[in-house]
């Protein structure tokens, strides 16, 4: 199926465990796993689809999507990816309950709960917070890794803090805050091979065989879909 866009005028088919992305101002900025129990052929850009994703926190809910990516998963792959998601069900319920019960007006000095990351794309549980932390892309690529499908190469374009402010406009202020920045980018440094949502869309925009065989090696411009690689660079094959 590769990668397709939803629209108002036509419907597309979305399958369980497809990767769904949300676009804002022409830029893909959030990725999710389809959490429907069976195929849906009625999806347009206004259709709410059940998803499992790192919102944050890890959550199961319904969202619209603008881009749909996937391959024809085998039953073996599907079983393993599904089991990965199932390991987080109780955490999703706890997160939903926390949000339901939390005070309307949290204090401005809300203690940090490092459960969202920009890079690395995942971090293991700790005593303070015994839950895996992910970026939204990290949750997706970890799930597929459990299905023995490595979606992205670890070699990716480096992004600076100024790049990240453009890529994460709703977190631009946080990125100027030293404490918040340390949460999102716990390894420190001044540039990072961040796993971006557009890379996923371009990774899936290849043949199923190629997706399975070779992790996608993003180039500058692949954060967009369709890719906006410079002409001198080889284009993404379909």
């Amino acid at each position, binding site marked *: 199926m590769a990668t397709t866009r939803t629209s108002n005028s036509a419907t597309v088919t979305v399958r369980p465990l497809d990767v769904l992305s949300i676009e804002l*101002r022409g830029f893909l900025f959030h990725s999710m796993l389809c959490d429907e129990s069976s195929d849906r052929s009625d999806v347009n850009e206004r259709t709410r689809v059940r998803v499992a994703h790192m919102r944050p926190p890890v959550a199961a809910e319904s969202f619209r999507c603008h881009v749909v990516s996937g391959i024809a998963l085998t039953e073996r792959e599907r079983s393993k990816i599904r089991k990965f998601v199932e390991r987080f069900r109780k955490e999703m*319920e706890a997160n939903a309950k926390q949000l339901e*019960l939390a005070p309307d007006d949290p*204090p401005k000095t809300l203690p940090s709960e490092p459960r969202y990351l920009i890079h690395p794309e995942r971090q293991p549980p700790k005593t303070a917070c015994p839950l895996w932390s992910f970026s939204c892309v990290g949750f997706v690529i970890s799930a597929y890794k*459990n299905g023995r499908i490595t979606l992205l190469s670890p070699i990716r374009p480096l992004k600076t803090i100024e790049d990240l402010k453009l890529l994460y*406009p709703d977190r631009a202020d946080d990125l100027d805050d030293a404490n918040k920045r340390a949460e999102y980018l716990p390894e420190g440094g001044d540039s990072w091979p961040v796993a971006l949502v557009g890379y996923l869309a371009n990774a899936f925009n290849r043949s199923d065989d190629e997706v399975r065989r070779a992790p996608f090696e993003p180039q500058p411009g692949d954060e967009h879909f369709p890719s906006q690689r410079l002409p001198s660079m080889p284009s993404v094959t379909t």
Partner: protein
Amino acid sequence: MAESLRSLEEYLRTRLPTWDEDDEHIELDGHRIESVLPGVIQYNLLLKGSEEWIRGIGLNCREEQVEGLAKRIRSMSRQQWTEPRNSNLLLPGTTPKSTTRIFLTSTAPSNVPVQDAKVGDWVYHPEAILERLENDSFLEKDRLAAVLFAETKPFDGELRPRLLKALSRFIEGNRLTEDADRMIYLCSAIRKYAMNMGQDQIEAYAEWLLPTDTTPVHHEVEMEFVKGLSYRLQFEKLSLLHESPNAIEILGDIAFGYLRKSLILQKSYANTAMLLIVCISILESRSESQTDLTDQLLKKVEALGISWFQEMVEDNLSEALQFVEENNPEVAVKLHSLLGNK
């Protein structure tokens, strides 16, 4: 455009409480406002006719005005904020309420007292959480909320043993629950306890997995117990030559029970069995005793002939070995040896 945004800000400050909206958007001077979020006061604009999105990243209003405006927006209708009205928005405070329960299995109706939802700011303070965990005179809804919110707070120094004692009491009293809502709190307590417990507590922890003569540990709770232990063993400090015979026996018994073709495809048993094997392999690798339980379990996995499950076990064992190498290199040497020929 700047003029339009100024108009929008003024509009938001003064007119939102009485806005006139259709089911998708409100309109302002040629713009369509797709959504305004409470608290952070962000908004998206779609320029009418142009298909151009403009995302506001915060109102330029004085600090003391923000909270009041957020309150006014929220007070309009809580329901309309339970989820984003536009899928472009992914920000805190817009979650579906868990009253629409999803992923809950066919368990008994909830006996958790109906709650007047919100709790106080105390949920952000570990000491206040502990107070409610330790003192039965607080309302049950607050004691349950204390369990839930404790999970993502740090409890260091002298707070940690108090937390473990309180969570232990809660787990002991609730571990056999069939109530779907109570399980959410129980599983939070289990994850927090497991990650914070000392090595000496692993033996007693394993006994929570035992059923009584009449009541089993619910399979979802059971998986959370095993998952919590697997995290503890992979990501926190361990010492070599630390025997856990009781835990190994209990975990092994459960694992062999699930390693049947008729069971492994059901419910959460595949995950539970895989996590049990991860735990047993690490516990065995710390032991001086010559046991071969991991080897027996892996042979049993192979004999099942369920290739995806075997791959899942192998991949997760391999990953566990990496994590143990990072956190407990000495244990990793023995674990590597234990898994070496597999």
